[in-house]
């Protein structure tokens, strides 16, 4: 155990005084390279991270307020998109991937998926009116059976983004290795014979990739979410810390995830965008930024991670992924992915990102500004995310 360089309380004190030294994850990599881990750990208080990409496990928990007479909603639709009403009287859950009633999906292949839950969320955040339609079986205390009215976000007494799985710590790279035709996946439109590859991660800017063992990101961590302030409320679904890792502890494929929530009324469509993924469905692109306190030299080393240090598995999405079979075809670095070409089984394959690096950088920069201005304090986790059993060489100076 190395000596602690600073505590959350000390950092927050400096933040309140507008004296915190805050850099983005990209800047930290440069500082550590130029000045060394020890000097960087002494100098930097907080490293900001960011990511912006489609995150399908997203939605909103809404309370639509009471009608007169009151109603115990069993089914409700927002602009034709079904919501889940099996919770209380006027609480609803709206999922990002739900399609509008009557949407043809991919009956006419591959399908455009022009409107779904993600679009309702973007419409709400943008201040547009949504038609709410609801049905109920009626009770003595909640007699109303049908309700239809326009609502805007400001009319809803309560509207929170509730995303059970966001911010994946690394992920797959997809290719089409065996299909004779183009396939349409959530990692892109993939041409036959490994004609192209799709990936989705902010890499060196990504929150969990900068804190690979979840030392500082846990339950209660305060974050930038969709343009406003949110929190991590738990590990996300499919959170899996026990995966093969590099010597520096970076997972070699999809690993940890975050469950996040925040007040939709603070958010903006710049960081919360509906996605119509051709041939696949509707999703929601979510912007997340997580501040990482530099508690000690190990955190300085972790936040110095660069794209060339992060590897990802290339998976065949024509047969291997859909049928849970086969091994990765290759392992490539994010530096290679971002440069535009990777080599898979001797072939040069053009790559495309589904996650916006430019916007991830913008988010990390925005969070840096909030911290420097004293507008955002760090929240020490009240409980950790489930950790990794791997105990390998944790510190290499």
């Amino acid at each position, binding site marked *: 155990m190395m000596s602690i360089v600073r505590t959350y309380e000390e950092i927050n004190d400096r933040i309140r005084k507008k004296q915190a030294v805050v850099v983005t994850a990209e800047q930290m990599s440069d500082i550590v390279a130029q000045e060394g881990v020890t000097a960087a750990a002494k100098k930097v208080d907080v490293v900001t991270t960011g990511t*912006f*990409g*489609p995150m399908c496990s997203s939605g909103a928990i809404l309370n639509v307020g009471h009608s007169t007479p009151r109603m115990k909603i069993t089914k409700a639709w927002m602009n034709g998109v079904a919501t889940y009403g099996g919770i209380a009287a006027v609480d609803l859950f709206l999922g990002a991937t739900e399609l509008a009633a009557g949407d043809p999906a991919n009956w*006419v292949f*591959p*399908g*455009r998926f022009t409107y779904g839950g993600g679009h309702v969320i973007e419409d709400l955040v943008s201040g547009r009116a949504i038609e709410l339609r609801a049905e109920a079986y009626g009770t003595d205390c909640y007699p109303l059976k049908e309700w239809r009215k326009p609502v805007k976000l400001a009319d809803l007494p309560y509207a929170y983004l509730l995303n059970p799985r966001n911010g994946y710590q690394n992920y797959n790279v997809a290719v089409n290795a065996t299909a004779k035709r183009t396939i*349409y996946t959530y990692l*892109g*439109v993939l041409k036959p014979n490994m004609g*192209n*590859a*799709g990936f989705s991660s902010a890499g060196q800017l990504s929150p969990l990739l900068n804190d690979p063992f979840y030392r500082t990101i846990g339950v209660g961590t305060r974050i930038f979410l969709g343009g406003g302030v949110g929190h991590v409320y738990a590990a996300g679904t499919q959170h899996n810390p026990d995966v093969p890792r590099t010597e520096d502890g970076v997972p070699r494929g999809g690993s940890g995830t975050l469950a996040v929530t925040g007040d939709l009324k603070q958010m903006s469509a710049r960081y919360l*965008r*509906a*996605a*119509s*993924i*051709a*041939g696949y469905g509707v*999703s929601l*692109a979510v912007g997340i930024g997580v501040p990482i306190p530099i508690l000690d030299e190990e955190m300085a080393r972790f936040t110095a991670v660069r794209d060339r240090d992060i590897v990802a598995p290339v998976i065949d999405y024509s047969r291997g992924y859909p049928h849970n079979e086969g091994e990765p075809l290759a392992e490539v670095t994010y530096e290679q992915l971002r440069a*535009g070409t990777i080599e898979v089984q001797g072939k040069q394959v*053009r*790559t*495309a*990102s*589904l*996650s*916006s*690096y*430019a*916007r991830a*950088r913008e988010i990390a920069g925005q969070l840096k500004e909030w911290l420097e201005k004293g507008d955002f304090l760090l929240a020490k986790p009240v409980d950790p995310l489930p950790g990794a059993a791997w105990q390998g060489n944790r510190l290499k100076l």
Partner: protein
Amino acid sequence: MKQQGALLHFPQTLVGVPLVSEVVRNYDVEVNILQASITQTEAGRMFALFQGEAQAVEGALQFLRDHQIRVVLSPRNVLWDEDKCVDCGACVGQCFRGALSLDPQSYRLQIDHEKCRACELCVPACSYGAIEALGNTTNGNGDA
């Protein structure tokens, strides 16, 4: 020599009249039709590149306007809505000609309109509706 891209909207009444042939015959311009959606019973839409002496090209376009064709000048083969674009780069992976790229410094999307041939492969790859190819047919399906 001038090359001018133009999106032409033909009203249904004119669909049977060979106006493009007249343009080629009378104005000494090359007309390269890149995309067209025209049937006898509907209004039509055509995106073409007109090439020739500047005066000839302008004369040809005015001739079309005089015949009730709506002419929308467009140096571009694709319409890129910068407000909708999130700079992810998904479209870049589809472009055979290298017309789409992410700037290596800013990672913002760059479009080289000279290289673009409106093949429309980038259109379904964009999840945010930020790219529209001008010759796009109206079946709404997004197939290239």
